[in-house]
């Protein structure tokens, strides 16, 4: 029996090996290499000046106002877009879940924005808000150059993000809705709970894991936001995000050391968000068990 178990275990590892190797090659190696590079002064323009400087790159970034500004912008974008997506995603998920007619068609139609390439979506929004070619100003009777001011530019970026990714949020929430047993809701109805009470007291608590997963996915995505901002403002008007900063350091300045350090810091940010959510996620699970 024992022999068989260990054999199976070995087979399991063998079967996993290709995937693990591939993951190590395509993720672990670049991450470690970026960590290593971030300890050097290494400008691709002047490779002969490459020198080991320890954590100086990190010190330089963390004492720079540019970094904190970009981090602040990223957090504004992340928090506002994810919150609004959650609020909009719920009704959308309920519609997708409860629709009686053309269920497939409704679900497919909802998902169209998410299926679109982000660059294309961002360009479409850019044209829509353009003062000369766009329709938004005409529609609202305004003469606003939306992308030339900080707050209106933020607004357009957030709207683009919401439009693009709310369907994804709704999809994840819908998966959570299917977890809610139908008889439980029926029972609550028999007990006289109205729709709002059923939603708050039964559906939401049961869906908590699904909500947290959806929030985690979207927060991680939103924290690394790049393409929408790149297309809409290129970081002008104080809308620069941390990913854009990494791009500028890497691609524009060819500063591999500093750029790697920015990437590592973004990675740490992502890690912190994950830990925060998983802790919250775990806590909510155990809480649920204790309560029961």
């Amino acid at each position: 029996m024992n022999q068989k178990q260990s054999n199976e275990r070995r087979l399991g590892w063998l079967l996993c090996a290709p995937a693990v190797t591939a993951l190590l090659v395509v993720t672990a190696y670049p991450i470690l290499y970026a960590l290593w590079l971030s300890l050097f002064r290494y400008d691709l323009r002047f490779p002969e000046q490459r020198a080991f400087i320890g954590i100086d790159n990190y010190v330089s970034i963390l004492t720079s106002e540019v970094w904190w500004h970009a981090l602040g912008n990223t957090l504004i974008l992340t928090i506002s877009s994810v919150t609004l997506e959650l609020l909009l995603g719920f009704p959308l998920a309920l519609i997708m879940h409860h629709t009686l007619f053309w269920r497939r068609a409704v679900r497919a139609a909802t998902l169209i924005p998410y299926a679109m390439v982000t660059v294309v979506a961002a360009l479409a929004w850019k044209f829509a808000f353009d003062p000369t070619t766009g329709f938004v100003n005409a529609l609202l009777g305004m003469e606003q150059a939306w992308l030339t001011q900080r707050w209106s530019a933020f607004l357009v970026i957030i709207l683009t993000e919401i439009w693009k990714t709310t369907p994804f949020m709704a999809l994840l929430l819908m998966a959570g809705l299917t977890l809610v047993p139908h008889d439980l809701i029926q029972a609550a109805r028999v007990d006289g709970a109205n729709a709002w009470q059923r939603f708050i007291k039964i559906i939401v608590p049961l869906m908590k894991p699904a909500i947290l997963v959806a929030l985690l996915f979207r927060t991680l995505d939103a924290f690394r936001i790049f393409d929408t901002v790149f297309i809409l403002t290129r970081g002008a008007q104080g809308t620069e995000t941390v990913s854009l900063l990494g791009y500028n350091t890497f691609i524009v300045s060819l500063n591999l050391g500093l750029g790697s350090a920015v990437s590592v810091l973004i990675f740490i940010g992502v890690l912190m968000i994950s830990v925060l959510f998983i802790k919250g996620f775990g806590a909510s699970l155990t809480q649920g068990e204790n309560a029961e």
Partner: protein
Amino acid sequence: MISIRLTLALWIAISIILYGCSSQRREAIPTLNWYVAGEPSGAFSMAAKRCSEDSGQAYKIEQVPLPADADQQREQLVRRLAAGDNSIDIIGMDVIWTAEFAQAGWILPWTGETAEQAKAGRLDAPLQSAIYQNQLWAAPFTTNIQLLWYRTDRVTTAPATWDEMILVAESLGKTGTIQAQGERYEGLTAFFISLLASNGGSVLDVSGKHISLAQQPTLQTLSTMARFANSSAADRALATAREDQARLAFESGHSSFMVNYPFVWPSAQRNAPEIAKHIGWARWPAAIEGKPSRFVIGGLNLGVSAYTPYPQLAFHAAACLTVARHQRMAAELGGLLPTVAALYDEPEIRTTYPFADVLRSSLNDAVQRPQTPLYNDISLAISRTLHPMRDIEPQKDFIRLRRAIERALNSEGLL
């Protein structure tokens, strides 16, 4: 039998692959790729065609257009050059890239006969922009410098200094607006460096390695910028204005002054002939009364990529592209100022540019932007620190600016 066939097939496959690799850049008539900003008037492509024809089948110049925005041009070129791309032969270089490209070993130095050809009869300032560490790195092609444009129907004489101009503009009321470049980009850096130079200061010291930014001229410059941006004479959209926004606003007739490049002159005549009749010109306003203003020089130099398979031909072709007659063509068709001094005396040029003498005197006093391989980082440091101009606090921003530039010089500053 099978093995023979297999060997044969393998041989064919290998030779096709090898041929494919090697034939990419081994044509009967070598093609020289000229990476340069797109030029709508066609002056560049005509020059390329003529040089190809005159070469007697020695080479064929193919123009590869780069984006219009200088930052994006640099981004594309730098990415390719850092990867050693051998498809680039001749590079249309903004004057501010010379030191960076030379130091990185991306362009070849000019020597001997072609160097003499590239230097012959050139104005000093454009020539200096192609020189780094006493070595010529590019052939001066076109140049550029800002003038002051004003409405002769509202102002009788051009104001001599910024202070005077702001006062006059404020007294004009609604139509007194001064158009300038205040967006966070190279234009803002150019504005700052020019005003600083006019105040007698400079960003880097003579060695080009250390920060200068003397206190008195820098504070003076910052307070003029703040005074201007907060005055009623500044356009409300100053913080997002580039050269073209300034031009369009001036052509609409609601402004009385504008600092801008000479491309605004043919444009005004085409788009707003009524206003063009009343446009006067003068040197860029001075900072100190009686001390001539100094504006930074712009323009395009042609360099030869270090990775070209045909360096000799590329030098020859670049020298041909920049000769006086092609500069004349670019000046007349494309509105690009020539670097050959004698052209400013030619009647045709003087008809196209009635302000040729003001241009020449401005060019004679022109100042170079810091000639350091780290210029891009320094420029970003300046424009980021000083944008938006209306929020400048001279004392505080003097310290922030020094710190940002020092970081950039250490290659450690985040942009």
